[in-house]
């Protein structure tokens, strides 16, 4: 600091007294403010014109400023920063998802305390680790503002202590008089939940007198049997498999099916890649052996009614009626037994228009050739059919090889008879019913009719459903991301469910509620710990137990002791008797009820992401419908439904229940059958969930539980039309090399560039001088400098892609892709950054057109129609990040440009929205923000970004796009950046696996690989260099950074 002093006048320098006095005044002249502002002597003021103007100027200025409202941002800084939370850095917590028969061990991504993304837990055994769309999309359900925000009594808010007192009193009264309390609960594999049930049973179970018969069938007397309070009820049950195993092995379990060991796979109406049991695990095992480069590639036969995901991926597929499932099982048993040299069951089909008999024989031959290394699964809920299938597997020696009973899949349990429960409710025996993770009023018609007879109804649901709205008390449980729990999905494999956020509302774990009501006042967390200490950690000292507990919580997984095959689980089935018991009644029409990959049993219906996710096969979103073979619709119903050609509505009566549903053409559906998805038609849920028609009331009950097919069907035209929202309105590939396909034998024997049979020829074109050159050399533009540094690329193995759609929802959640609703989808305006194209094969090909000489116009017309029983291919399509991107050259404002790392970048705030780029994109992956999805009233209740609470799920790393700009896949650029940053902080180069896009991360079958193409060791580089890789529409010269890998089917020829 210098001591220099500056003076601004001589008076200042000399410090004249007058100057000093003046300098201390704020205003050099007297300002008559006081006079002017005081009311008393206002008339005496001598405010000058200047003053008046000053006051006026000030007043106007002040008034204007006051009128401008500063936007209020309600953010509260951490006073004390939690140790583990760093703003901008994500925390991952291991947890579990178990709902609706789906189980996943998961990692939950939280940002600033908010869970925003779910992916598979890599600490969980690799063979089973994966998420489905329902799992990764479930994160937005946490923020559903439709959830119960606290306990309710008859619709009004009540405190927890009051509700506990009242319920305890009522339950005590019931216990006093020896009444019955029933807990209707979903199947659970949770040891602590089961322990809770045991505690509850201790308190409330009743005893019934049962007559006991001796071996001579004479009445010996009576015995008191404890009748559990818990009624296991799943909307979609698997009692067929469980009962068959109980009969054949003495244990009602779902075994572990190991598809990775099966050289021949025969599935009879089981969509094991989709919604059947543990689909993710099966997909993983299955796709492991679908790689043509491997030592062997499995051969997959599928016999089924409707085109399922498994059917779409099958090598040989046969369409059968639901009533013929048993017959196919019998035929297969007979054929296998014949090869084994013994007599087996025999059956014949009521209707065979798809060469089933021959296919069954082929299947039997292939099964026999792979004895002990094959697998037969069946989706029927008839125990007799399942026993025949068990018989086949036993003949083939698959037990303890591909099927292991000792490691049971516990997520699905034997369901109790709803018929008995309903009967008891109607007769007034049941005094109280508690709903836990179950909604029988919606999914069981008889129950719904009887529920009013029950005196005390309590729901533990976390959000309103059809059952909870009828309840006297609602004691909402936490959402699973807020709650502690434990699971044992497979025997010996334990997982933890760890909360990733504090409960948003005044909720309480359902188990804790039950415990409280039977007098146990511990928290559920303590209860779980107790359970574990007494079981899994039994015998361990406190310190070891704590360590084990902590590591289990941290990794989310605890592996129990390794199990040896149980000797006592020997096969003792009687196939002959079972086969004799199979009754198949055919009908003019038959129906198969199924669960969609997206909606499942309907519990997650109010999830807009899941509603918008199209069905993998039909590609229809936001509805359920009747699926029908196009040949059955010919001349009666609209086959090619689109925006201007709405679907026809039919009135379907199944088992006496009539529903009006639109009818949608589904090639591959057995002629004379229809399919209807369950899980729709929810009435007591949020805006997004109230779509479609509830098909549960049409289900027939057999042995107390529902069966999912029927022959008592009649269909009539309702004379109405209905708008269907389909994301794809053209279903065939028009014989273009969009999905490149070949057979295993061709793949093995023929060079890919072979002149005649080359199955993946390099694209070449003649240049202006007639010289044939690789496409890459024919350039108008200079190459981007992409050979240095990183060059991000993606490879998609079409052999591994099952079409499940987990990548689609993962992409949407990661990138804040707006949900646009049915009407917009119907107008072909989905916002999917990543879509899965599904193509059916057609009877007409260019080759056939030439040989049959049908004429080019007619040939192309016929190509538009899928075969009645087609083959199916799936192709995930996202921005191909072309190195010569047609979109980049046409943007007038340079809003889309190429990065030095090979990315095709979209600068939203530079975009003016001419949509020229979208027109010029050969892949049509660019999406335009037609509306302001975040504000426009059309999307209220659908688009999560519109809701204060749901907005919390948005990824803070990705901007929410405004109206009028183009958006598209960015290769998850935010993840690339963070991956690079992590590597940089660690002071090392980026490794393969540091950067993984959301879709790649979500893909349970590793079909999508992401990485650096300039890294010679990356898996994506290896895939690019593979013989199978090709680029979509490469002839256009786009030079994409996404390579597809030729689909190879294990068949003789491609249909």
């Amino acid at each position, binding site marked *: 600091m210098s001591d220099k002093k500056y003076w601004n006048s001589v008076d200042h320098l000399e410090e004249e007294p007058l100057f000093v006095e003046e300098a201390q005044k704020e205003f050099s002249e007297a300002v008559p403010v006081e006079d002017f502002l005081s009311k008393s002597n206002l008339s005496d003021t001598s405010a000058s014109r200047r003053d008046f103007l000053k006051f006026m100027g000030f007043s106007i200025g002040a008034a204007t400023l006051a009128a401008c409202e500063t936007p209020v941002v309600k953010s509260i800084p951490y006073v004390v920063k939690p140790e583990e939370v760093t703003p901008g850095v994500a925390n991952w917590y291991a947890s579990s998802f178990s709902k609706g028969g789906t189980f996943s061990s998961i990692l939950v991504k939280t940002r600033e305390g908010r869970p925003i993304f779910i992916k598979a837990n890599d600490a969980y055994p690799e063979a089973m680790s994966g998420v489905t769309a329902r799992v990764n999309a479930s994160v937005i359900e946490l923020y559903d503002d439709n959830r119960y925000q606290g306990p309710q009594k008859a619709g009004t808010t009540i405190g927890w202590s009051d509700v506990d007192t009242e319920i305890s009193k009522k339950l005590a009264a019931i216990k006093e008089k020896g009444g019955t309390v029933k807990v209707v609960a979903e199947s659970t594999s949770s040891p602590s939940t089961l322990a809770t049930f045991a505690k509850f049973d201790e308190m409330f179970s009743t005893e019934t007198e049962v007559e006991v018969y001796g071996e001579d069938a004479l009445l010996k007397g009576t015995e008191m049997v404890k009748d559990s309070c818990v009624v296991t009820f799943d909307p979609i049950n698997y009692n067929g498999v469980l009962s068959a195993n109980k009969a054949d092995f003495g244990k009602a379990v779902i075994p572990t099916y190991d598809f990775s060991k099966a050289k021949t796979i025969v599935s009879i109406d089981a969509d094991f890649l989709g919604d059947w049991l543990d689909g993710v695990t099966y997909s993983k095992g299955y796709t492991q052996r679908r790689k043509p480069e491997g030592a062997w590639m499995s051969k997959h036969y599928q016999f089924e009614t409707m085109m399922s995901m498994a059917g779409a991926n099958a090598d040989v597929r046969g369409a059968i009626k639901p009533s013929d499932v048993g017959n196919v099982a019998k035929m297969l048993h007979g054929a296998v037994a014949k090869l084994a040299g013994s007599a087996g069951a025999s059956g014949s089909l009521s209707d065979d228009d798809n060469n089933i008999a021959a296919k069954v024989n082929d299947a039997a031959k292939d099964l026999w050739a792979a004895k002990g290394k094959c697998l037969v699964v069946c989706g029927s809920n008839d125990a007799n059919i399942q026993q025949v299938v068990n018989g086949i597997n036993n003949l083939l020696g698959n037990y303890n090889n591909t099927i292991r009973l000792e490691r049971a899949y516990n997520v699905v349990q034997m369901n109790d008879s709803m018929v008995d429960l309903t009967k008891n409710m109607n007769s007034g025996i049941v005094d109280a019913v508690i709903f836990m993770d179950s909604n029988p009023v919606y999914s069981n018609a008889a129950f719904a009719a009887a529920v009013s007879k029950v005196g005390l109804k309590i729901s533990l649901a976390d959000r309103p459903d059809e059952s909870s709205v009828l309840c006297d008390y609602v004691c909402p449980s936490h959402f699973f991301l807020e709650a502690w729990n434990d699971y044992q999905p497979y025997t010996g494999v334990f997982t933890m469910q760890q909360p990733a956020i504090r409960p948003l509302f005044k909720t309480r774990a359902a188990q804790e509620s039950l415990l409280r009501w039977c007098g146990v006042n511990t928290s559920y967390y303590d209860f779980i710990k107790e359970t574990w200490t007494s079981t899994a950690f039994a015998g361990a000292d406190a310190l070891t137990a704590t360590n084990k507990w902590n590591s289990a919580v941290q990794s989310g997984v605890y592996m129990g002791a390794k199990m040896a095959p149980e000797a006592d689980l020997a096969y003792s089935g009687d196939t002959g008797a079972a086969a004799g018991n199979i009754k198949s009644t055919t009908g003019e029409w038959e129906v198969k009820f199924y669960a969609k990959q997206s909606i499942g049993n309907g519990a997650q219906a109010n999830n807009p992401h899941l509603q918008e996710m199209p069905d993998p096969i039909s590609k229809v979103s936001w509805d359920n419908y009747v699926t029908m073979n196009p040949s059955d619709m010919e001349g009666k119903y609209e086959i090619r439904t689109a925006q201007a050609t709405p679907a026809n509505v039919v009135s379907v009566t199944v088992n006496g229940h009539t529903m009006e549903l639109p009818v949608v053409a589904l090639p591959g559906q057995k002629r004379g059958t229809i399919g209807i998805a369950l899980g729709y038609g929810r009435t007591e849920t949020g805006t997004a969930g109230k779509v479609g028609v509830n098909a549960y009331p049409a289900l027939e009950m057999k042995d107390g539980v529902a069966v999912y097919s029927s022959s008592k069907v009649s269909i009539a035209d309702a004379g109405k039309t209905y708008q269907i929202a389909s994301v794809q309105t053209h279903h065939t590939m028009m014989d273009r090399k969009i999905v490149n396909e070949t057979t295993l034998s061709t793949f093995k024997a023929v060079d890919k560039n072979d002149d005649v049979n080359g199955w993946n020829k390099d694209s070449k074109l003649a240049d202006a001088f007639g010289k044939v050159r690789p496409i890459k050399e024919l350039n108008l533009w200079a190459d981007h400098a992409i050979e240095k540094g990183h060059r991000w690329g993606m490879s998609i193995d079409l052999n591994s892609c099952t079409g499940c759609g987990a990548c689609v929802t993962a992409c949407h959640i990661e990138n804040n892709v707006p949900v646009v609703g049915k009407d917009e989808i119907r107008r072909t*305006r989905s916002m999917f950054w990543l879509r899965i194209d599904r193509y059916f094969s057609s009877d007409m090909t260019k080759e056939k057109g030439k040989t049959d000489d049908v004429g080019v116009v007619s040939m*192309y017309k016929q190509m538009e129609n899928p075969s009645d029983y087609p083959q199916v291919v799936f192709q995930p399509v996202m921005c191909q990040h072309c190195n010569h991107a047609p979109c980049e050259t046409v943007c007038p404002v340079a809003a889309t440009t190429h990065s030095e790392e090979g990315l095709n970048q979209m600068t939203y705030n530079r975009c003016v929205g001419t949509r020229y780029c979208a027109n010029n994109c050969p892949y049509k992956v660019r999406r335009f923000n037609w509306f302001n999805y975040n504000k426009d009233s059309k999307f209220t209740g659908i688009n999560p970004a519109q809701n204060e609470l749901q907005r919390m799920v948005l990824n803070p790393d990705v901007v929410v796009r405004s109206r009028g700009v183009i958006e598209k896949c960015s290769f998850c650029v935010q993840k690339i950046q963070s991956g690079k940053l992590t590597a940089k902080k660690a002071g090392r180069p980026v490794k393969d696996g540091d950067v993984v896009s959301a879709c790649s991360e979500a893909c349970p079958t590793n079909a999508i690989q992401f990485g650096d193409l300039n890294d010679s060791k990356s898996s994506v580089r290896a895939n690019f260099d593979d013989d199978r890789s090709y680029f979509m529409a490469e002839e256009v010269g786009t030079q994409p950074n996404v390579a597809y890998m030729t689909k190879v089917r294990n068949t003789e020829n491609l249909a």
Partner: protein
Amino acid sequence: MHQESEIRYPLILGDKTYHQITEDVCAPVEGRANKLWYAAFTISVVVALWGLGCIMYTIGRGIGVWGLNTTVDWAWDITNFVWWVGIGHAGTLISAVLLLFRQKWRMAINRSAEAMTIFAVMMAALFPGIHMGRIWMAYWVLPLPNQFGSLWVNFNSPLLWDVFAISTYFSVSLVFWYIGLIPDFATIRDRATRIIPKTIYSVLAFGWSGKAKQWIRFEEVSLVLAGLATPLVFSVHSIVSMDFATSVVPGWHTTIFPPYFVAGAIFSGFAMVQTLLIIARKVVSLESYITRKHIESMNIVIVITGSMVGIAYLTELFIAWYSGVEFEQYAFLNRATGPYWWAYAMMMTCNVVTPLIFFVEKVRKSIVISFIISIFVNIGMWFERFVIIVTSLHRDFIPSNWTMFHPTFVDIGIFIGTIGIFFVLFLLYARTFPVLALNELKSILKSSGDNYKKQQH
């Protein structure tokens, strides 16, 4: 003085004198409008307001109120744009190219044709604006110095070329039109009695006093501007066609587009001039000036350009087949036989087949048939653009994207609305501007006037 053979059809019918020409042309400006004009004006205003309402709705809510989708990202918007630009071609062609070629018959029609050009280009320019998702950022397509750092427009983009082409064409056309108007404004000014019109026309007349020196300069400027405008006639639509030709979309990616589009533009421009003038000559009684001869001349241009367009259509088909590219082959097959076959049939019939009857002399001299055919061509040329844009986009490379386009009431409203705005402007023009280049006409009265031709005997 210029002599013209008497066998040539006179360009001014009736025994017109210089004074009568002045009277005839000034009559609509000085007199009161008839009921027909008011009726037409009212309808046009209503339609224009409806269109403006639709535009405001679009800007207020988003492009989603149109029928576009992720596969067909342009449809009626760009169809209308190209259609209006095409219509805007005749004016400059008539005034500039025909001036250079010394075609005297242009004098009766060039003023209205140019007015039509100006208004049509205004309508055309509207669409690239409102079709933008963020019209409030539309100025970003101009290469303006800015505060965004080094952000500049993308000179590779044909849309940017469009911006330059259209704006240049519009300014040159406007200047050319205005220069031509100056002597005629002066005439009206001199005849005006009321103070307000007199003042306005005085300003518009730009101090014209009719001196020989001014006439010399007038002629020189006209010639220079004609020279400048002539290449523009060809460049504008060539550049518009490059929006499509430089893309990769099958059906767009075609080297024939520039000449084909120019021919089409002249074709549609003349058809629109025909439509307007056949009405105008009746409404403002200009039968003596816009004669059958004029109509026939325009019909000849229509049949020639129409045939060129027809050849272009056939060439496209041939090249698609000859290219051996399956996407290209299918694109054209789909145009003719796919779900939009009716649009293609409409285009073929209106643009190629019906104008062919103009090869019959009697027909091309028939005013009624000329009018009908001109309407056909207007419709056909709209469909041509629709066919090019929508049928190429709706089924391109990847079949999973294939879909249809369905216009909404907003799409239709905006299109009809621009026709309304166009007619509002044209009707106002007809009442306030000299609809014929009266001073120029006078220069040919003694060579091509009916009465003077008779006197030569």
